[in-house]
């Protein structure tokens, strides 16, 4: 018996209404909105920024170690002929608003270029991890039996590895080009997601609305797609938003310790160089770090706001 597919059109519209409802709840959280605004700004920066900035790889030894605009630094030059130190004050210029590094590369350009890396890795690697985790989680919950057992034991084993240590090992063994870094993160960061999705799927399966749907003759596929996936969707969105900062940090950390991809300017690489010139050019370490911090903060605010918005028990 075919039952009326009043469900199809209604649920798409219902989906739209539901999304609107959740959006309303999220909107009331000012921090989450601020986070979202920053992320949008960052995306624009990554996409269009490089057109407006200098070439980040352009080396110019004449202009090395310039401070940012508004700051000045003293430089002592020893003149062999006169056996004297002359101290000049070097000021920042608008040409290099955030200063330059020890090879004269424009820091602003480098930071903007770094935004690309962070977002790229952040989105792709997280996407991989989430998809992998969801597949494993759902598969585990639905198969039950030994498949569930085996998958969960495997998840337990992978979860025991401290995330960063495992990452370091993999990147060390397989090489640190950007592709491998993304793959490494994607193939190791799925464990938390798998666990959460599995437990959510298990609990949803036994909920009454599933029984009710089955009772009116819905097929398994329909049950999964019309009822279960939308309910897990909100969880997936929250997990994704909250996973991105960890991934971005992991990539930056890898670059910081030298396991990043040297052909791209990642924030981590700039930071690492900055640490060695703290006394002569402190701004090199400050810029990328602030960006990294703000990016992570923004995603955390947004993710937390989304989580509260989706939780039916929290009163917003």
């Amino acid at each position, binding site marked *: 018996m075919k039952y009326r597919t009043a469900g199809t059109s209604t649920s798409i519209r219902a989906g739209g209404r539901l999304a609107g409802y959740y959006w309303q709840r999220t909107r009331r959280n000012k921090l989450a909105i601020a986070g979202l605004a920053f992320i949008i700004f960052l995306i624009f920066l990554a996409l269009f920024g490089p057109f407006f900035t200098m070439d980040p790889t352009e080396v110019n030894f004449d202009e090395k170690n310039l401070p940012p605009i508004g700051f000045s630094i003293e430089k002592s030059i020893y003149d062999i002929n006169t056996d004297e130190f002359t101290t000049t004050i070097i000021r920042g210029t608008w040409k290099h608003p955030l200063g330059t590094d020890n090879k004269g590369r424009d820091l602003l350009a480098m930071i903007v270029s770094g935004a690309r890396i962070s977002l790229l890795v952040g989105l792709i690697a997280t996407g991989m991890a989430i998809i992998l985790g969801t597949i494993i989680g759902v598969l585990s919950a639905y198969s039950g039996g030994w498949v569930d057992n085996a998958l969960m034991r495997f998840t337990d084993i992978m979860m025991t*590895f*401290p995330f*960063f*240590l495992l990452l370091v090992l993999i990147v060390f063994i397989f090489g640190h080009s950007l592709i491998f870094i993304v793959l490494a993160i994607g193939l190791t960061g799925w464990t938390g997601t798998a666990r959460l999705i599995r437990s959510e799927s298990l609990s949803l399966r036994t909920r009454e609305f599933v029984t009710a749907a089955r009772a009116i003759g819905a097929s398994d596929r329909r049950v999964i797609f019309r009822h279960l996936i939308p309910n897990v969707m909100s969880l997936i969105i929250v997990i994704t938003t909250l996973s991105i900062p960890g991934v971005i940090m992991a990539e930056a950390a890898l670059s910081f310790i*030298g396991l990043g991809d040297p052909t791209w300017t990642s924030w981590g690489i700039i930071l690492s160089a900055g640490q060695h010139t*703290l006394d002569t050019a402190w701004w090199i370490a400050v810029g990328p770090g602030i960006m990294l911090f703000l990016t992570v*903060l923004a995603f955390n605010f947004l993710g937390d706001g989304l989580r509260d918005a989706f939780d039916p028990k929290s009163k917003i």
Partner: protein
Amino acid sequence: MGKTWLRDYIIKRLIYSVIIAWGILTITFVLVRVGPSSPADKYLANLTASGQDVAEVVAAIEARYGLDKPLWEQYFEYIGNLLRGNWGWSFSTSMPVMELIKTHWIYSFQLILLSSIFAAILGILIGIYSAVKQYTKTDYALTFMSFVGISLPNFWLGVMLILVFSVKMGIFKTYYDTTLPLFSLENLKALVLPVMTLGTGMVAGYVRYTRSAMLDNLRKGFVTTARAKGLPEHTVIGKHVFRNAMLPLITIIMFDLGSIVFGGAYLTEIVFGIPGLGQVSFNAIFANDYPIVVAVTLIGTLLVLMINLVTDITYTYLDPRIRYD
């Protein structure tokens, strides 16, 4: 209701842990062998620079490391060696890996221990306070601060602390002095910035977990009962609420310790130059000295496994609601 259930539970969990440990060792083995360059190649890179004959060296290495044997044999030798304490030979430092571990673990240990204690005490106290003062400005401020804390990249925080306190203000040295005796005051002073770096991320986490655990319990019925008995507020919060909150808190803190702290400690050691296992591994990476990198990863993972086991058993023992008959 005897205590045999606890013993049985411990045995069950031990067996399980052994299985997980086996899985860990196996995966690590697979990773190393599946990697694009064989261990011989990496050593090779070091040697060809010093001009020795390539083919001879390769053959010698393969024999020495048993790389010419079939994979299964290698696997069993690997497991056997690990269990016997032979964790390989570090070519960059000309020492058995085990030696290296023995001399350097103490630095990691002191860093992690001090940071954990610092973070736990501060974090739990702030978390309790934040929960009790929910909805006040202080709570909002503290919650915001905890967001900041977990978002700060800890390696950047370390660099910034060095910038401010070592470079600009000169209070601390910029690099860890390895000649200092471990139990000296100077050593403690040198650890202030590293502990603050590693600890900050941890504190923020502890604040959030404690606050959430406390909030879960603050509105429960037994709190009203405790007040109705005339108990002073500090007993109500400190004894009644906290003991209920503490149980899940212990689990979360311990599990967190494993997954996040070790990664953080690795980076902190590198930033500050503390010669712990993280630093050792870092140096090994650039010398292509794979046994050390593998060994440090393994230690970290097996420690996490142990911590999880201990936490699980402790929690089961402590929570009166869990009893398997």
